């Protein structure tokens, strides 16, 4: 089945130790998104790619970076994780257009020790 796959499902890192989360999709969607979701809150958009065009949200910390080497893969790099970065990170895809229906992966839960 076509889907959005996130690895790993659970990630534990140490304070200040760089970590990379990955997302792959078989939907061939041209838009990929990264969201941060903390407990009992709505998903917060960090950035997204229209094809190779990177769009950063104004309030996304510089500590968060992203790479999209090809249509299928997108990575979230957290350069120096702090305790406040512990959250669920959700990847989503969509087809650029009027609907922009979001197809979400299962998420990666990040813990920072």
């Amino acid at each position, binding site marked *: 089945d076509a889907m959005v796959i996130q690895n790993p499902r659970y990630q534990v890192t140490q304070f200040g130790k760089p970590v990379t989360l990955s997302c792959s999709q078989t939907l061939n969607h041209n838009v990929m*998104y990264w969201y941060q979701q903390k407990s*009992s*809150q*709505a*998903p*917060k*958009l960090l950035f*997204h790619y229209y094809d190779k065009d990177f769009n950063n949200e104004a309030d996304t910390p510089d500590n968060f970076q992203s790479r999209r080497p090809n249509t299928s893969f997108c990575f979230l790099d957290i350069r120096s994780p702090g305790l406040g970065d512990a959250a669920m990170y*959700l990847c989503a895809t969509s087809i650029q257009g*009027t*609907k*922009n*229906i*979001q*197809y*979400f*992966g*299962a*998420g990666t839960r990040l813990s920072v020790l």
Partner: protein
Amino acid sequence: GQQVMQIPQYQHVQEGEDFTTYCNSSTTLSNIQWYKQRPGGHPVFLIQLVKSGEVKKQKRLTFQFGEAKKNSSLHITATQTTDVGTYFCMNYGGATNKLIFGTGTLLAVQP
């Protein structure tokens, strides 16, 4: 900036009771999407509304888009335990071309 608020924040109902969540925006919405997120799960798309005053139904779920396109509602008739989760509205586009999720309503259903 644009804000999308949902009320209530939390609703606890007995199985069989009805449930409604409201989504309100400070600005006119180009469209509204609704998502459901089960506990421990990820958001799943339910429906999109585009036209002023639009009403759509999915079995026991009824979705409405306000005439002024600043609010929307999701109504569930005769809730079941499978309806448990957080319901989010989301807007994409509009004057700012932004993607914004509403604050969400957590529904708990007691058998």
